Structure formats: structure tokens, C-alpha cells
């Protein structure tokens, strides 16, 4: 049986005056009902463009001719907007990072929540009103009856995100794409929103693609994690496997840079030197090589492809994976030399 959403070799490029930007460069994954996939990466890694590519929410300058995204047997790429409108909000919904800008400031929240119900289900008046109350109650908005008639600016950031979630869930979609849904929120509210998404998923059985820059958010709440770098997936594994046996040096570095409560006070954090690469003129070899502690001459010449690592379902694109004989040898050679093949400073082995 095929998965609910199957994405194969998906690419999205933008024509700009400076050249062709390869924002998403050949991404393959699938997701089934009731599952959660986290897509993790830094700003500029292409994770948001990937989400928008799935929804076809892209500017006209985008080239989407390469790759396929098949949702329940329907090819999403190349569909007309009219056809996509039947899917948007009904079968696939999306929530965004900033609920203030994703909600319409001049429309009362009750009306925004029921917009897709009116469009897809023809539910109006009392029936729509009743469903709005139910949804608001579901997402934990206290006193929903009095909140139906307020505007987004009258709500707190957490409440606005709840409204956005209620709106996205109105037609009980099969797939929810959440693009950094908690990045603009306090940790306490982030916790509440993540708990809420998990509960709603358990109740409705929808699939969730959770896009985040924080591996901490992905831990414990997702089934699978895909780590993106420079428009590609560099490592993908079941969440417990990824955290216990990560293979890509980028995943390792990303995890090490998270400030942790168990660290002593004034701990110097591990950082990833350098910057994400320019997506316009990709250099030869592995995109992460210039920032990688493991980089060897081969990494500057050849581009590693995603291959199965030690466990089934665990894929990594690296010649010298973390915690393997090759990886350990590469790291100790670089540590001895004081620098990687790309010239990045490498301290003594950690």
C-alpha cells in the first residue's frame, strides 16, 4: 500500500537576478496517516520552501517542474489553483509561524475559523457557528462564545495560534503542515501548543509535518525526523534512532548547540562555525563540508547521496558518518592536523 503522501525527488528553484536559487534540491520522503514527521534545519535550509512546495504556495518565479508529490493518489504538482483549492483547508491544511500575519486582521475570528466550512461544506449560519464553538473549545480557547466576535489583535500570541489551528482543523484534514508553529511563542505557550497538536492528532488521526529549527521540539513528539541542509535531506531516521545514533555531522552539531538545563551555569555552547551555503552557486562536494569537523578531501570533490545507514529506515548522506570507523578516523585526523580539509579549525576530540 502506498503512503498517504509520497514525495519523490522534489525540487523547487527560483530565478533571481543573481542566478538560480536551488531552495529545495531533490527531496524524497513519505508520511502516513496518524504519523508525525519533523523537518529540522537552520534558516535558509529550504524547509519552509519545501512546505510551500507541497501546498503549491509559491511565487510565479518558482520552477517546480522536477519531482512529484502524490497525495492520496493525486499528483499535487502542476495542479491548477482551482483544483488545489478543493484540497487546501479540506484535505491539507497549514499553520504558520506568525499567527498575527497569517490571520486576517479585519475579520472576526469566528468567521475565519468557519471559512473553510463555508467553502467546502456549505455550512453557514447556526451550523457553522456551532462548529466554530466546538473547534474553539477543542483547541483550548476559554469562553469561546465571547471570543467568536473578537479580532485577532485582541488575542494573545498563544490564543491567536490556537485560532489558526482551529481554522486549519475545521474540515478535519488528513494532513497538517505546521511551519515553525511555536517559534514566535514563549516556552510555556510553546509547550501548550505542542501538547494540543499531539492531542488533536490522537483524536483525529491526521498526519503532521512539523517544521522547526529546534531539535528539542522534535524530540518526544515525532515519529520520524528529516534533517535538511542546503535544500536537501542529509539525514532521516525514526526519532529515537536519530537521537541515539545520529550519523550526520550536521545533526550532531545542531544537537550540541541547544542550551540545556542540565548544563552547569556559564557553559560554553558548541557552535557551528561559518554560515549556511549560498544556494545560488553551489560548490562542488558536500554542502556542509566547509563547516564540518569531519571534512576530508573527498568531501570537497564528491557529493554524498542519501544512503541507508546501519539500521533500516535510517538514511544519511555522508562519507564519514559520526561514530563509525570512517568518521572517527576522519575526526581524529582533522583534530591532529588542527583543521579540516576545508580549512575549518578543529579542536581536540570532544
Amino acid at each position, binding site marked *: 500500500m502506498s503512503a498517504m503522501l509520497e514525495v519523490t525527488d522534489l525540487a523547487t528553484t527560483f530565478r533571481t537576478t543573481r542566478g538560480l536559487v536551488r531552495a529545495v534540491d531533490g527531496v524524497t520522503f513519505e508520511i502516513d496517516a496518524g504519523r508525525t514527521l519533523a523537518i529540522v534545519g*537552520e*534558516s*535558509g535550509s529550504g524547509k519552509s520552501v519545501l512546505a510551500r512546495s507541497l501546498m503549491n504556495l509559491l511565487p510565479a518565479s518558482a520552477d517546480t517542474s522536477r519531482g512529484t508529490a502524490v497525495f492520496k493518489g493525486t499528483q499535487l504538482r502542476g495542479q491548477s489553483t482551482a483544483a488545489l483549492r478543493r484540497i487546501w483547508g479540506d484535505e491539507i491544511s497549514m499553520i504558520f509561524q506568525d499567527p498575527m500575519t497569517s490571520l486576517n486582521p479585519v475579520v472576526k475570528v469566528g468567521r475565519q475559523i468557519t471559512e473553510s466550512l463555508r467553502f467546502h461544506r456549505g455550512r453557514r449560519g447556526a451550523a457553522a457557528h456551532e462548529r466554530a464553538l466546538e473547534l474553539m473549545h477543542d483547541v483550548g480557547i*476559554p469562553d469561546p462564545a465571547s471570543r467568536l466576535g473578537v479580532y485577532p489583535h485582541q488575542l*494573545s*500570541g*498563544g*490564543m491567536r495560534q490556537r485560532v489558526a489551528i482551529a481554522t486549519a482543523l475545521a474540515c478535519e484534514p488528513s494532513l497538517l503542515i505546521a511551519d515553525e508553529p511555536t517559534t514566535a511563542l*514563549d*516556552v*510555556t*505557550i*510553546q*509547550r*501548550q501548543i*505542542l*501538547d494540543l497538536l499531539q492531542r488533536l492528532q490522537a483524536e483525529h488521526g491526521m498526519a503532521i509535518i512539523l517544521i522547526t*529549527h*529546534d*531539535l*528539542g*521540539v522534535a*524530540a*518526544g*513528539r515525532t515519529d520520524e525526523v528529516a534533517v535538511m541542509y542546503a535544500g536537501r535531506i542529509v539525514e532521516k531516521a525514526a*526519532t*529515537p534512532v536519530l*537521537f*541515539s545514533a545520529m550519523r550526520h555531522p550536521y545533526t550532531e*552539531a*545542531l*544537537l550540541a*548547540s*541547544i*542550551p*540545556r*538545563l542540565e*548544563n*552547569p*551555569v*556559564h*557553559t*560554553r*555552547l*558548541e*557552535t*557551528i562555525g561559518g*554560515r549556511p551555503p549560498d544556494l545560488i552557486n553551489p560548490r562542488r562536494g558536500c554542502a556542509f563540508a566547509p563547516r564540518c569537523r569531519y571534512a576530508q578531501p573527498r568531501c570537497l570533490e564528491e557529493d554524498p547521496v542519501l544512503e541507508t545507514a546501519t539500521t533500516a529506515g535510517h538514511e544519511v548522506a555522508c562519507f564519514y558518518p559520526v561514530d563509525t570507523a570512517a568518521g572517527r578516523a576522519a575526526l581524529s585526523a582533522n583534530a591532529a592536523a588542527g583543521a579540516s580539509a576545508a580549512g575549518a579549525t578543529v579542536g581536540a576530540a570532544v
Partner: protein
Amino acid sequence: MAGSGTAHLRPADEDVVLRVEDLVVEYHVPGGVVQAVSGLSFDVRRGETLGLVGESGCGKSTTGRAVMMLPRPSGGSVRFGDREMTTLSPNQLRATRPKLQMIFQDPISSLNPRRTIDKIVGEGLSIWKRSDARARVAEVISAVGLDPDVVSTRRPHQFSGGQCQRISIARVLAMEPEIVICDEPVSALDVSVQAQILNLLEEMKARYQLTLIFIAHDLAVVKNVSDRIAVMYLGKLCEIGPSGAVYEKPWHPYTEALLEAVPVPDPTVAIEPMAVGGELPSPLSPPSGCRFRTRCPLARERCAEEEPQMREVGPGHHVACHFPQAENRSA
């Protein structure tokens, strides 16, 4: 936690560089008075970093700005060195402000997009007509890890968020401040860049002998930089103490809730249901007694009637709670 009192303030002779006492900030709005900060007291020693933590709307940014007299607070005192900030004339205030600098949350909107980096970093110096401005600008730009020859003539849009935050830090350092107030300096940044900026702040603090007030909502972030932690809720202080003690044994139920909310990057750690739900009540009509009682799992009748006062629970560690967690646990 709606704690009041000044029991936690340290004697002025212990090299206290900033002493805030009974700070009140109120805004008049249609329909009432927003009580943004209500009788807040804290102090900071020279060379210390105070982490000021709380949720959005708790008054932590307002506190940071009130210290700078932006705007002047409605009541209370702010002593900076031997000066009482609240009674300074505008001219005296202007002469004092270079010693107090701020770094803001959004590095891109806090830099003028039309100016070049050397103008942005050197603006304070040119206002004060410093003759060594050029050299000083180059020095601080290299101190924050950028190359002055490359960046000086560029404009903010040519930089990433992390680099813009470095530029903001350079601008602050140029003025040779004594106290730097960092208002959520890393919350808009990716975790990887966040780590770089936190490390940079630690380096700059040592290199330029700074005193920092670090405002944030994430206790894990604050832990890496702070010597002391102050937890705020709805305009009041809940708990204040040395970082080690506060993280190891939080006394206030709200501190505990904030600690619990930090995501743990380990999928083997089970996610327990949160004991504290809901959101901050409106600062237009804060709850009676302890302001945290409406969300507190331990609240009893007394909490509605009587406001808890600050009391010492360990060396330099104070809490404002009638029924603190740690006490209950040991009992």
C-alpha cells in the same frame, strides 16, 4: 508569587552598581490602568549577569526600559552608581545614558536599513564627538567577530539575523557602557546562531568588564549566561537567587513550571502533563493576593487574601510564596 518586599536587596556597599527599588510602571488606557510593573525590587553587582525571566506580558521588557528611563517609571527608585536616575534632569540623563546600553530582540528592525554599518556602530560616538571614533568602531566590529574592512560600507540587509545581532552588540560596545540590558537578544535566532551569540556575550562581558541584565523567556538560554536569576510574573518578582540554587532547587511553583516547559532534546524523556496551564491574566485587573494564584496548582485561600512577601530560603536566594514547592517536598 505576586511577591513584594525588599528583603532580597543586598547592602549598597557590596559593589552594587544598579539598585531598583519598588519600581512601578503604569499605563493609562481606555478602560483602566495597565499595571505593567508593580513594586519590583532587584539589584545587580558590578560584573554580574542578572537573568530576568518570565512569560510575554510579565513586565520584563518594561522593567529593562524603565531602568533606562524609557519612559520614566510611575514610581520607585532606580539607583545607578551614585545617581538616582528618576530625578535626573533631561540633560543629566542624556549624559548618563551612554553608560547604559540596550540590545533588542529583532536585530534586523533595530538597525537602520539605510545606513552603513560603520555609521550605525559609530552613531553614539559621533553624537558625543569622539575623536577616536573611527578606530573605536573598527575595534568593536572586530571584537564581535566581523571584519571591519569588509562590513563597514555594507547595509543591514546584506547580513543574516545572527550577524545583525553581532552588529547591535558592536554598537553597544562602542559606547563603553557599564550596564548592558539585553532584551531577548537570541529569541529571534536559530538555535545554532543562538549559541554563537550567547558565547559572544560571555566573551564581551569578560573583555569589556560589563554588567548584564539578560531578559528572556527561556530558562535554558538564560542559564548559560547568568550569575543570578530573577523570575517575574505579572509585574512582580517570584523568586531571585544565584543561578545554581534556582535551577537546582526552585522554590516557586512558577519557576518550576518555566523549567518544566523547556523542551528536552532527548526522546527517551517522557513528556509529563504540565501542572501549570493557561495564560497570564490581564494586567488591567491583576488577581488579589498572590498574582500567580489563578494558575498555581498549590493555591489555597490564603493566597487570595494575602500577598506573599520576599523571604530568604538560602544564601542570597529569596522567594515570594506562601507554600513554596521545595518546602512541601521536604515536609
